[in-house]
């Protein structure tokens, strides 16, 4: 169950309401009354217990499939000792009252929802529990120590008395909020750590879940935008009159976005089909744009060419150059990876209604703070005049962190004075993404005569994401995404040199599920495999030998290999490959079993065994689902995906020429969760990075072919065979 709500509505409800906020001096908890008085208090968690025995948790994170509408309430419910069936969530609006305590903004990304919200959610639940127990003890005139909270009630065993939270919540709301409630001890969790069913499944099965594209506002117009086909293209000619002649077409408007530049010509009409007809009638002719020479070949040239340039040093241990020169054996390889499209199944869309004193936005977004800021900028309204309704997200994967579609819809509503529902076509969605950066690497490695790794030099050429999105996080010219997974790799090597060459192309780049780790895990984990082969060692053994002091990485490798039967012989023609990667605080290792049809060059992935250590476990079913999802998406990218460029723009247009993995290509997946009790790690993204290298390494194991280029299409496989 989910509904949108406002702060005022929340405070008006009867019962016990708690809010909790991270302040410089620690967490601070307030009752509804105190919150109403103290306007400066910006809570991160809201929790409410009402006389109908319901527990409502306001969730400030977006649900895009990763399960936060279930895992976050589970944390509160457990500390509260609530009855799970009485727990529901409300989706937070956008505003300072709902910011992520660690980030200081309201957004969902970086696999952080549970990590950032775990502590405040537990404290809120525990504080409410203590207040309910106190209320009962006062009512009954017995010591608090004799009262026990259990499954939505407080019980006094000695006198066999019991009251539900609903009966106690009004009394409890009169008490002082404890600032340091006692959290449950290990072993006392009833909900945390168990595979509870998701709260959003029923409405996603019966079709009633409301995504952004499902929003209707009275009197709204539909908008569709004719967009430049090439980067920087300007309209040479167009026929506004012809478009306006179509019945039901009301406006043709040029759309300029403050953050994303010129967007194209929007047609606003009474129905979506009329908007499309208007677009066709516009007959826009575009010029060649700013980079007509940009295509697949020119991009390759640019990437490879930049390997010759000097970059910024991201890590330098020892003397890598000297160690490489003195090495017993030296290996060198170059890897090239393409731009990737997010391909959320729900195309970009947004509905906005701007009036003189109010702006309402309905949008599937990962970035409420960004939406709010964009709306402020475009409308000139104040934050408290802007209302953001976050719907379900039909996939996010980082794409919905961007506010391009939001800025377009707000512009159009402001210009027309009407509510606007803007829906991108799939073609617009493919061609106007902010892609996972294309990149290339040159890596050199040195081994001594005992087969130990003595040096690793890694140069990565890649466009920068952070310089646009969070420029304040660029350090000494280094984009953290560009080198993540290389600069912090855990292999124990005395001489390591990591260099980053920034190459910005006209193609915009953004966060794509697991970000820099998607490409850096591929190059690092393929190259370590190449080195193990050069050292004539088993590739698992070789990795373990260089991770003796990194027990979490060591353990995931060991578990994945053991569960996969690493030393068991495979069927003829099959190969096995392994890879591990640390990202977003979680360690993941995967073993892939593949076979290769060397005549046509196709790769079949039969089975993937995954081991994950994300520290504590909230909901193992959700962790497993996220690992499966990450593996499937990562495999799709590894085998099939890459944006094609042509004549200064994107040539790929829909799922026939940007193909995604389908059911018959999806392998059997086995997930093993290692409950290490270490620091909590993320779960939405870390499943993605290891799969591409695990598959490439398995292909080598099966055929002796090293694939150093993605995607691993039949052409890539045959191309690599030709070089053997």
């Amino acid at each position, binding site marked *: 169950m989910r509904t949108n709500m406002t702060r005022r509505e929340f405070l008006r409800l009867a019962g016990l309401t708690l809010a909790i906020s991270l302040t410089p001096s620690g967490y601070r908890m307030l009752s509804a009354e105190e919150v109403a008085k103290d306007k400066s208090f910006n809570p991160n968690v809201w929790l409410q217990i009402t006389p109908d025995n319901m527990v409502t948790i306001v969730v400030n994170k977006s*649900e*895009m*499939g*990763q*399960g936060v509408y279930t895992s976050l309430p589970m944390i509160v419910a457990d500390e509260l000792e609530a009855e799970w069936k009485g727990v529901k969530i409300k989706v937070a609006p956008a505003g300072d009252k709902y910011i992520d305590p660690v980030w200081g903004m309201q957004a969902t990304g970086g696999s952080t929802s549970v990590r950032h919200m775990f502590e405040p959610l537990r404290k809120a639940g525990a504080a409410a529990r203590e207040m309910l127990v106190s209320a009962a003890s006062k009512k009954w005139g017995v010591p608090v120590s004799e009262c026990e909270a259990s499954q939505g009630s407080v019980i006094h065993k000695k006198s066999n008395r019991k009251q539900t939270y609903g009966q106690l919540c009004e009394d409890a709301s009169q008490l002082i909020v404890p600032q340091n409630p006692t959290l449950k001890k290990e072993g006392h969790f009833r909900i945390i750590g168990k595979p509870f*069913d*998701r709260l*959003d*499944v*029923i*409405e*996603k*099965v*019966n*079709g*009633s*879940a*409301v*995504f952004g*594209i*499902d929003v*209707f506002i009275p009197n709204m117009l*539909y908008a569709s935008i004719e967009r430049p086909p090439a980067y920087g293209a300007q309209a040479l000619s167009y026929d506004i009159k012809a478009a306006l002649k179509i019945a039901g077409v009301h406006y043709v408007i040029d759309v300029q976005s403050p953050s994303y530049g010129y967007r194209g010509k929007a047609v606003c009409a009474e*129905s*979506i*089909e009329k908007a499309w007809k208007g677009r066709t009638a516009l007959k826009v002719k575009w010029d060649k744009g700013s980079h007509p020479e940009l295509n697949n070949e020119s991009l390759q040239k640019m990437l490879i060419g930049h390997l010759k340039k000097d970059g910024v040093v991201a890590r330098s241990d020892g003397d890598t150059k000297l160690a490489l020169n003195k090495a017993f054996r030296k290996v060198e390889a170059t890897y090239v990876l393409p731009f990737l499209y997010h*391909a*959320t*199944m*729900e*195309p970009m869309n947004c509905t906005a209604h701007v009036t003189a004193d109010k702006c309402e936005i309905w949008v599937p977004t990962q970035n409420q703070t960004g939406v709010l800021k964009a709306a402020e900028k475009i409308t000139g309204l104040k934050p408290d005049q802007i209302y953001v309704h976050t719907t*379900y*997200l*039909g*996939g*996010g*994967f980082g794409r919905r962190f961007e506010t391009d579609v939001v800025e377009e819809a707000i512009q159009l509503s402001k210009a027309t004075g009407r509510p606007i529902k803007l*829906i991108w*076509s*799939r073609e617009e969605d493919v061609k106007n993404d902010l892609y996972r950066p294309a990149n290339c690497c040159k890596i050199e490695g040195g081994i001594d005569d005992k087969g130990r790794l003595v040096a690793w030099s890694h140069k990565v050429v890649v466009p920068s994401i952070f310089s646009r999105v969070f420029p304040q996080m660029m350090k000494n010219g280094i984009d953290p995404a560009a080198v993540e997974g290389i600069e912090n790799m855990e292999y124990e090597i005395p001489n390591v040199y990591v260099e980053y060459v920034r190459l910005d192309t006209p193609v915009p780049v953004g966060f794509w599920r697991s970000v820099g780790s998607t490409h850096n895990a591929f190059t690092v984990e393929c190259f370590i495999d190449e080195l193990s082969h050069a050292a004539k060692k088993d590739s698992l053994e070789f990795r373990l030998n260089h991770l003796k002091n990194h027990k979490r990485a060591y353990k995931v490798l060991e578990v994945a290999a053991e569960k996969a039967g690493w030393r068991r012989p495979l069927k003829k023609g099959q190969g096995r490959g392994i890879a591990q990667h640390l990202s977003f605080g979680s360690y993941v290792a995967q073993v892939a079993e593949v076979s290769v049809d060397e005549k046509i060059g196709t790769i079949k992935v039969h089975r993937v065994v995954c081991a994950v250590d994300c520290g504590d476990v909230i909901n193992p*079913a959700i962790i497993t*689902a996220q690992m*499966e*999802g*990450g*593996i*499937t*998406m990562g495999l*799709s990218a590894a085998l099939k995906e890459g944006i094609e460029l042509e004549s200064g723009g994107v040539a790929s247009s*829909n*799922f*026939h020429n940007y193909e*995604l*993995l*389908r*059911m*018959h290509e*999806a392998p*059997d*997946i086995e997930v093993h969760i290692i409950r290490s009790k270490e620091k909590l790690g993320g779960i939405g993204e870390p499943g993605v990075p290891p799969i591409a290298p695990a598959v490439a390494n398995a292909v080598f194991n099966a055929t002796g072919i090293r694939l150093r280029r993605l995607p691993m299409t039949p052409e890539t496989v045959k191309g690599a065979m030709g070089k053997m």
Partner: protein
Amino acid sequence: MITLEVNQKKYDFDVSPDVPLLWVIREHLKLTGTKYGCGMSLCGACTVHIDGKAQRSCQIPVVEAQGKKITTIEGIPENHPVKKAWVKAQVPQCGYCQSGQIMQAIALLSEKPNPKEEEIMNVMNGNLCRCGTYRKIKKAITMAAKGGKK
């Protein structure tokens, strides 16, 4: 004027006959469980039943659906074995493609009550899921098939 029968209910409305059925169902009738994914019959998110057969509603001009019985996800009873299996197997993640998946699965099982894995894949291959729920979809279909056996 177009007349459509959707989920055993008749609707009369004024719309150009060439508009794809998908957009009529979604934006005119507001039965939004049926989703837009690609507009080219490549992803299966828009799958509905027309006279009991699974069809991609993005490819059918509304005029061609006149006089036929259309069923959308909203017209499938809550206690339908496939819906129940989908809940039991906890299939959805983001959920966007699931209506189409379920409609395709129901049509599959009505033709082949006990499909082999290969048969499941042949039919379900037309439905994309970016979240990677394929394994659970297979599981749910197998569960629903077994439930139907009794």
